[in-house]
């Protein structure tokens, strides 16, 4: 059983997102370690890009700061290696836009990511139509398929069938960011996806409180929390302590 499969043995799982390099590289490594050791089951480790067109203001701001502080793909991969060295043993999925990966060299990027200890990739600007090149380079490491509320049934079936690792279900029509309430019809959407795949279905975009996570966790196999995580931890004077509390709060809401 690989790390991703092991993570889903007890469901629903908690999957926070945090970008490397924010508020600085050392702190971000400490934060991700704290998230991992206080209840996160899988972490989306963010790679920064100058033009994150699927992201709302919170993640735009954080990744912009990371870039200003000098984060690069290379340093991000070294940070993943460092996390493994510190004993972080949950799946780490690299989430980033395509261009920096291409600039690094796709095959080299995938190889170095695997060697660093990454378990898979989420690339929001790589829909099924364009994923072949990446998947050929990635080999056994999964490129996580994304589905959206706008995805029509036939397309959903085709994408869900080819899913590896898990499915990332975007819960709202929009960009990343906190929402006051959960998307309507989410339960139906999850049911639809499950008709086509036995892969775990994880829900992200717009989930910001432990209460919302609990509600989603009753329907989905995993709950992804991005902007709220970045905002709470990034806005704290003691980010590592904030990360511990954040993870613990979501952990207890989901059990």
């Amino acid at each position: 059983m690989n790390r991703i499969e092991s993570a889903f043995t007890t469901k629903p799982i908690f999957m926070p997102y945090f970008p490397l390099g924010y508020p600085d590289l050392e702190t971000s490594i400490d934060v991700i370690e704290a998230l991992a050791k206080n209840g996160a089951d899988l972490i989306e480790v963010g790679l920064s890009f100058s033009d994150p067109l699927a992201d709302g203001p919170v993640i735009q701001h954080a990744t912009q700061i990371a870039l200003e502080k000098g984060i690069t793909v290379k340093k991000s991969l070294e940070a993943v290696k460092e996390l493994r060295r510190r004993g972080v043993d949950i799946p780490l999925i690299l989430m980033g836009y395509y261009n920096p990966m291409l600039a690094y060299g796709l095959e080299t990027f995938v190889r170095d990511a695997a060697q660093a200890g990454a378990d898979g990739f989420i690339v929001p600007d790589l829909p099924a139509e364009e994923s072949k090149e990446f998947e050929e380079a990635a080999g056994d490491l999964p490129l996580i398929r994304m589905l959206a509320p706008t995805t029509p049934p036939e397309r959903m079936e085709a994408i869900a069938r080819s899913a590896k690792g898990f499915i990332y279900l975007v819960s709202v029509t929009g960009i990343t960011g906190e929402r006051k309430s959960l998307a309507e019809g989410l339960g139906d959407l999850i049911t639809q996806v499950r008709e086509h795949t036995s892969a775990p279905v994880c829900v992200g975009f717009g989930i910001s409180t432990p209460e919302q996570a609990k509600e989603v966790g009753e329907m989905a196999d995993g709950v992804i929390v991005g902007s709220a995580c970045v905002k709470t931890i990034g806005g704290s004077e003691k980010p590592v302590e904030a990360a511990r509390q954040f993870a613990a709060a979501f952990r207890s809401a989901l059990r």
Partner: protein
Amino acid sequence: MTTLLPPKFGPYGGQFVPETLMPALIELEEAFVSAKADVEFQREFDKLLASFVGRPTPLTYAKRLSEKLGGAQIYLKREDLAHTGAHKINNALGQALLVKRMGKRRIVAETGAGQHGVASATAAALLGLECVVYMGEVDIARQEPNVFRMKLLGAEVRPVASGTRTLKDAINEAIRDWVTNVRDTHYLLGSALGPHPYPTMVREFQSVIGREAREQMLMEVGRLPDTVIACVGGGSNAIGVFSGFVDDADVELIGVEAGGSGIETGKHAARFGDPSKGRVGVIHGTRTYVLQDEDGQIAETHSVSAGLDYAAVGPEHALLRDIERAFYTSATDEEALSAFQTLCHTEGIIPALESSHAVAEVIKRAPKMRKDQIILVNLSGRGDKDLNTVIKELSKE
């Protein structure tokens, strides 16, 4: 999951967008393909181009400029005389008609120089659509008259404060709005850029420039030009005029990028002109040449003309360059400003700063050509919007 039309130009183009948008691109392609095959749609579009835009735009012989340069005879395709002052209206109307066909009620658009924003606002007013235009704060400051125009036409102009606060960031914000409101909103992209079907669709709507120009050359001059020159930001005016001549192997096609302060200074928008930064990458849904740093972060660009101040070039231009069907060069801010004044003095035409880059290349090239040779320049827009910038730049000297 296959497209109806080829989604790529050789290795360039494609559909690099979030899944949320894929269904909208599929719907758009279907609407575009069915509209193209629909005689009624084409008739309506042609009618608007004639009665509203004022097409065909004239072909003007630039007699005094030709004499001054002492070489090739120079002809101007007068897109500056199109309604709203630039070629952008051709594409804006075409897409706005498609929006009606798709039953959507709202459009979002990005704008750099403001020309596409004005064209979109105009098309929206004409066809009764809601219109939101995203514009970088830097561009708002340097293209003020166009901001007023958009507002007068009933559009909402949303300033973009993220990133470099120019065209690239306006596109990011327009896409974010589109992702959020995709069910009732169309993204009226203004250049031959972005994910498929935009580069193909925008070329089709701009191909009227090339069709008219070719016919006018044959009817009024009696032969095709030796060289066609156009400025290239995203490249919609260039691809529009090139499309009329691309099958005429003897006609040389030249695109002119923004050389900014000079390629060597690093402050420019010459994607093809600077191999140290211009490499193949993916931005805004398409694979093409992109100015970027070693780590794949999109580079800051600079040009005196807001419409050329963009880090990527339309994917079809990347292919035309690879196969050497078109050639690309650049003109600096200084050369463009000088060309701007030259055209004012010799022809009584105030060109847009974007178009002035094409004129700058004519000034370099015409004297080396024979008097029986012909250059056709696509004068993509008029310069009224640039007066503030030009006054400021000229007072620096």
